[in-house]
């Protein structure tokens, strides 16, 4: 049975239909067409599908889509402003924090959730913030450095 769902996605109102009981990840990708969100495990384990719901990080694969009615959702598709990348996206490029790139959308949203509430995190806080996101390529260090770089605001493209 299809159920109507309405929410805000990256600042714009969205109304769609989804099968009852569907997770948010599948609704974003298949019903809304936001392919910036990636699915990894559909078990809440890998963090690849992390989005922000009302500013808080959530793994969209184990989030019931119907529970998001009326809420504000952010994905990586909404990070850039026109031609300008988000400072986190720039810092990820500058620090070679994306290798295969599959974990990158989830990493970016986990990092954004941190910086939105704590603009000057310690390294330990960055490690905790991305602790639920698995990366099999980089060994995490470039990602940690990218988040710290974005927090300092000293990436070269912005300078």
């Amino acid at each position, binding site marked *: *049975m299809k*159920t109507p769902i309405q929410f805000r996605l990256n600042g714009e109102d969205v109304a769609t239909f989804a*099968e*009852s*009981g569907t*997770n948010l990840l599948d609704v974003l990708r298949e019903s809304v067409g936001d392919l910036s969100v990636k699915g990894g495990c*559909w*078990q*809440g384990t890998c*963090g690849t599908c*992390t989005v922000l*719901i009302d500013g*808080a*990080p*959530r*793994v969209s*694969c*184990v*989030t*019931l889509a*119907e*529970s998001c009615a009326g809420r504000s959702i952010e994905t990586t598709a909404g990070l850039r402003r026109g031609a300008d990348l988000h400072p986190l996206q720039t810092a990820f490029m500058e620090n070679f924090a994306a290798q295969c790139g599959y974990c990158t959308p989830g990493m970016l949203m*986990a990092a954004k*959730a*941190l910086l939105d509430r704590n603009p000057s995190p310690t390294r330990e806080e960055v*490690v*905790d*913030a*991305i*602790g*639920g*996101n698995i990366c099999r390529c980089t060994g995490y260090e470039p990602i940690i450095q990218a988040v710290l770089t974005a927090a300092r605001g000293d990436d070269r493209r912005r300078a």
Partner: protein
Amino acid sequence: MTVTVKTFARLTEAAGALSSERGATFLSGGTLVMRAVNEADPSIQTIVRTTDPNYAHIAATSGRVELGAGVTMAAILAERDLAYLHPAARAVGGPAIREAATVGGKLFAHAPYGDFTTALLALDATVMLAGGFGQRELPLEEFLTRREREAALVAAVAFKRPGNGELRFVKVTRMHPKGVAVLSIAALLPGASGRVSGARIAYGAMAPTPVRAKMAERALEGRALDAAGIAPAIAVAADGTAPVDDAIASAWWRREILPVHLRRLLLGESASMRRA
């Protein structure tokens, strides 16, 4: 297979639906139930949920603490009056999981998950159930033995607020900062500065559900928390446990390292997260 979702504004209405409908599963934070739905678990035909704000209430300032079953790990970490529970709440997943995982949902997690419940068991928590019969309370220890058969909705948990420094917790993992538990230990140690009286020790991942370490508790009675005082408790640390072999650790290894980590916890030498 089609799953029907029924959302109720009031907890009592959701409890009634859960009790009366076969094949109904209550959805709290979603980290367990949505995983099963994604895997097309045929036992889940109807999802019952509630938007009742009482389901996520926190009453933490008096001697009796009550946590709505919908309180998330993130909400606990944001509450200064629950600082003694922060190590156990922080041990659950990464930030995105902690925003979803709830006190009530954790009661149903299978080993090696459910570390937070280990802390509640050490606190001698009571589970408050709502159903077609009205409300009733059950000791957490008893609830854990019958949770699979329980048709009532877990509305809240309650426990006596521990004294300063009385609750200790450690989760032992193979990966940091986030890893599945090799084991976890929670210990309520009244009189921790002198002789221990009425200790409650609980283990996670040492049996299908969190379990009490009753032999170790008895051996600790009246003893000081020093190397000589805790030695009898360490000697019987693994008594009554029934860990399983899984991808994280073998049952044998869990039994081998349990006394090591219990010893460190009792001596105050343990961080809340340790590598195995």
